[in-house]
């Protein structure tokens, strides 16, 4: 099976939707869901057939020093599964949610372009190609954030677009510096050539990439755009942005660059740990003061992404395992919470926690699934969030970083407090709400149930037999560092 199919399927769906979708309403969701199911199944098959290997595809048959290569390793395949899974549930949710926002086909076409941009980022082996796919995904994201057409949505989209254009300029500058230092843009070749680059220039390159992709990942000093963009978008798009976009464009690319290309230099790992811990604590402190449900979730995303960065900065097998496991878990429970917020907004017409109430009776599925997600995000034992945070904290202690471990525990406790607030005032609030403005459709309920079940099921990834076959190859691919280059160049 060839790799470009992961880009071609969603991109073709986007074009088909814009051709036939405007004639009949049902073509948009139908084509989008069919394409996403196909990508999901293919990514699952690819992940398990890949094992610990790596797959290289040379576009147009041009051999590697000259052409552009697509590269899929276990880490990329793992991310592909997450993207496809969250897109699939988001589309299911959209089917009944988006109808009240008007013209369907534009939404689905943009959605598929977003998916193809993210898939492209995940399977490309070329630095400039990575930049182009990042832009494709971001363009679709601007459009989707502004999709509702209300004043504050345009404001959020404008802020997002300005921040993204700053970060894109920084990234392009970094790519230019890399090219002038190594005379190549293929990541594997850069990784080899980096050995001959002076330490001063390495710091420059790293700092530019950290600022550029840090802006996209919204780690703490670069987070200002996230709460606006993620809370103003329609609910399924918020879950795409918070659940997978900041992870593919931010975390994945940073790990790829700093581990597989630059070979994990200590100064940047320390920066990851400091920024990560800062995000954990400040993000959750900002979250706890919010009454707007979606804004609270957006701030909590900053805090949870902090855990991922802390795990990455530790540079140990356990830390990376925790970080990648938390990446999967955060995609699941944060998407679920955004679906809950969407269902509540549709049912009650408000996002203000103080105006909610009587939800366990009116919207039982939303109430129960939000309970599961709240427990998961706060790290309560049978749920997945507990195990990933535990791995990260144990790894921090093992790496002799007790301060970071302590701050991570404090962050987790504050997260628990935040979501107790959501449950106490929002879901189990005392407002006498008698009837709903509109009932959630079957698609919304299905999406919430699927993710709530997965919140428990993914805990199994920590069980020894399963961990070896799923999580370990991914961790090995990251920890292999510059072995990535050898695998790409040797696997030809």
């Amino acid at each position, binding site marked *: 099976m060839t790799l470009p199919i992961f880009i071609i399927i969603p991109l073709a769906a986007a074009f088909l939707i814009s051709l036939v979708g405007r004639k009949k309403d049902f073509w948009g969701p139908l084509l989008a869901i069919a394409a996403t199911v196909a990508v999901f199944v293919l990514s699952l098959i690819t992940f398990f057939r890949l094992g610990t290997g790596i797959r290289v595809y040379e576009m147009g048959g041009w051999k590697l020093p000259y052409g552009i290569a697509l590269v899929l390793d276990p880490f990329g395949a793992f991310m592909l599964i997450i993207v496809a899974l969250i897109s699939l549930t988001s589309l299911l949710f959209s089917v009944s949610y988006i109808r009240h926002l008007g013209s369907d086909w534009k939404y689905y076409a943009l959605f598929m372009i977003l998916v193809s941009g993210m898939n492209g980022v995940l399977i490309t082996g070329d630095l*400039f190609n990575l930049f182009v796919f990042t832009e494709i995904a971001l363009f679709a994201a601007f*459009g989707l954030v502004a999709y509702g057409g209300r*004043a*504050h949505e345009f404001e*959020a989209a404008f*802020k997002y*677009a*300005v921040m993204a254009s700053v970060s894109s300029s920084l990234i392009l500058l970094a790519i230019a510096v890399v090219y002038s230092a190594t005379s190549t843009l293929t990541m594997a070749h850069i990784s080899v050539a980096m050995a001959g680059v002076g330490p001063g220039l390495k710091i420059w390159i790293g700092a530019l990439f950290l600022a550029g992709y840090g802006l996209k990942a919204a780690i703490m000093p670069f987070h200002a755009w996230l709460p*606006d963009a993620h809370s103003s978008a329609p609910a399924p798009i918020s879950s795409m942005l918070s659940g997978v976009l900041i992870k593919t464009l931010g975390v994945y690319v940073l790990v790829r660059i700093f581990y597989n290309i630059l070979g994990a230099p200590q100064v940047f790992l320390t920066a990851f740990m400091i920024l990560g811990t800062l995000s954990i604590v400040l993000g959750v402190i900002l979250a706890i003061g919010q009454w707007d449900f979606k*804004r609270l979730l957006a701030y909590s995303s900053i805090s949870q992404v902090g855990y991922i960065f802390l795990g990455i900065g530790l540079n140990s097998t356990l830390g990376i395992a925790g970080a990648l496991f938390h990446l999967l878990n955060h995609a699941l429970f944060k998407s679920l919470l955004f679906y809950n917020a969407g269902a509540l907004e549709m049912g009650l017409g408000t996002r203000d926690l103080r105006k909610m109430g009587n939800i366990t009776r009116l919207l039982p599925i939303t109430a129960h699934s939000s309970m599961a997600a709240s427990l998961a995000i706060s790290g309560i034992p049978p749920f997945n969030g507990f195990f990933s945070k535990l791995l990260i904290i144990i790894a921090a202690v093992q790496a002799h970083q007790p301060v970071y471990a302590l701050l991570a525990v404090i962050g987790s406790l504050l997260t628990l407090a935040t979501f107790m607030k959501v449950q106490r005032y929002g879901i189990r609030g005392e407002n006498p709400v008698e009837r709903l403005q509109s009932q959630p459709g079957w698609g919304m309920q299905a999406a919430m149930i699927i993710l709530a079940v997965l919140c428990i099921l993914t805990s199994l990834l920590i069980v020894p037999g399963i961990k070896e076959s799923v999580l370990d190859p991914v961790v090995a691919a990251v920890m292999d560092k510059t072995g990535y280059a050898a695998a790409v160049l040797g696997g030809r």
Partner: protein
Amino acid sequence: MIIYLLCFALFLIGLYGMIVKRDLIKIILASGIMGYAVNLMIVLFGYRRGAVYPILEKGKEAAIMVDPLPQALVLTSIVIELGTTAMLVALAIRLFNKYKTFDITEIRRLRG
């Protein structure tokens, strides 16, 4: 070396404009300046003094040539920037329709 520093100064001017200016249109222009600075930098990295264009013609000796790859990158990046600018302008127009102003201090429905 001085030419790279000047280029970087242009980049910083763009960054300054984006952070400090209060007018939507000026922010968009600043983002354009930043983009130009980066494009210029990429082209400069491919420049060789006294080199020829990288096409081998009949009856011409092979000589030192400029690196053609940065020029291809710049073309792509210009197209992307065009898209970004168009997107920003479109959003600015819609914002103006809603708020009747380009001043970002008055466009503040999102806080916190």
